[in-house]
């Protein structure tokens, strides 16, 4: 069957087997291998992606179920951010919140949702419980949880800094055309 959707801002149309999962579709049909298959049962979160802005385990969603919807994967997460890294990706690097790395794409997707939610609330720090609940669907077999928790908090700080920088740049950009227009002999 034919599935048409948007993956990381790009329109994608592929022929897929009716029983194919979203994860298989992304990895084998679209060629985005960042999302991983751990348990294949929605327990480990290694396959976490966003569909219409909500986190899902792509191993439990069928490819056909994303028809007409927006999918965002780890490959598209950094879009629009400094160095093409989402603040939480920058934080994972800075904090060394990676051991073997297999769970990392899923953890980053879940952590990014926590960071983005905090950014929407004015960049306030998440509570320990909010971090834990945000990451409850992800397992790290290396048990590297402590650094991951630290990285989420750091990601919120980086996001807040990025937000205020964008605010300043945005104000500067907004001012520039006005000046130009004034100088324009219109």
């Amino acid at each position, binding site marked *: 069957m034919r599935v048409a959707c948007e993956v990381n801002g790009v329109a994608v149309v592929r022929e897929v087997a*009716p*029983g194919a*999962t979203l994860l298989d579709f992304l990895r084998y049909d679209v060629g985005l291998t960042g999302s991983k298959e751990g348990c*294949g*049962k*929605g*327990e480990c*979160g290694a396959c*976490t992606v966003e569909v219409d802005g*909500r*986190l*899902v*385990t792509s*191993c*439990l*969603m*069928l490819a*056909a*179920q994303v028809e007409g*919807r927006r999918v965002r994967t780890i490959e598209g997460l950094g879009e629009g951010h400094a160095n093409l890294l989402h603040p939480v990706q920058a934080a994972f690097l800075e904090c060394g919140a990676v051991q073997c790395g297999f769970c990392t794409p899923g953890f980053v997707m*879940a952590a990014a*949702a926590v960071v983005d939610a905090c950014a929407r609330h004015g960049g306030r720090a998440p509570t320990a419980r909010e971090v834990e*609940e*945000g990451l*409850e*669907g*992800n397992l790290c077999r290396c048990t590297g949880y402590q650094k991951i928790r630290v990285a989420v908090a750091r990601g919120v700080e980086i996001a807040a800094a990025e937000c205020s920088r964008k605010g300043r740049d945005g104000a500067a950009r907004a001012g520039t055309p006005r000046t130009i227009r004034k100088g324009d002999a219109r």
Partner: protein
Amino acid sequence: MVARVRGARRFVAGGTDLVVKAKDGKLAPATWIDVAQIRELRGISETRGSVVIGAATPYTEIIESKVVRRVLPALVEACAEIGSVQIRNMGTLGGNLANASPAADGVVPLVAYDAEVVIQRGARKRVIPAVDIATGPGRSCLGQDELITEIRLAKRRRNIAAFLKLGPRASMAIAKVSLALVADLRRGRLSDVRIALGAVAPTVIRATHAEAILEGNILSHDVIARARVAIAESDAIPITDFRSTAAYRRAMCAVLLGRALRVNSDDVGRSGHNPLR
């Protein structure tokens, strides 16, 4: 439209149970019909006397709903206990009911709130109490092409509501025992008591013996003690399996009932407090 699909067919919403079962080879081959994005099956509405939840509304939307938080706090607590963020963004109450697990976290509060489930097949509609949807472990009263479309919950004056669950860990855990309790407590006396139990019988059940002891009575130590005995010895009919033992499950029914009543009697009307988390 459904009738045009030839051969065996099956509805799927969040897929969090069905896809796992399919991968394990536990489902007969069928054409799956995705209902997750059907607008008429999604959303929460409030009338003067009731709250109506679309069967394909994901748990996250139920948890975030101001109406549900105000009117049905035990349902919010239960939905918040389900799976993980990812699972709650996918899973639905309609799916939880149709899956007919005796341990279904979402069904336990529905039974306590006397929810009515609307089932449709084409233009034909029937309304079944939530407690009667499951007929055994994994078996439901749903016939061929019957789809759960909405869940109706009557608003009633009740100031205590709790959902408590025991599992091996806080997330992604199937309940060993779960309990929902709703009631109205005025001047120490309980009325309109409903207690539902998960994972201690072939389906989610009402704890009618314990309810009868509590109903209309002053919430005294003696009444609580008798209700605890009744729920463990008369209401619960658990089995021993790889998740827990029958004896532990019976004992924990009493413990959870005691906790639900203590939480609520110490702190009447304030929900969202779950001592197990």
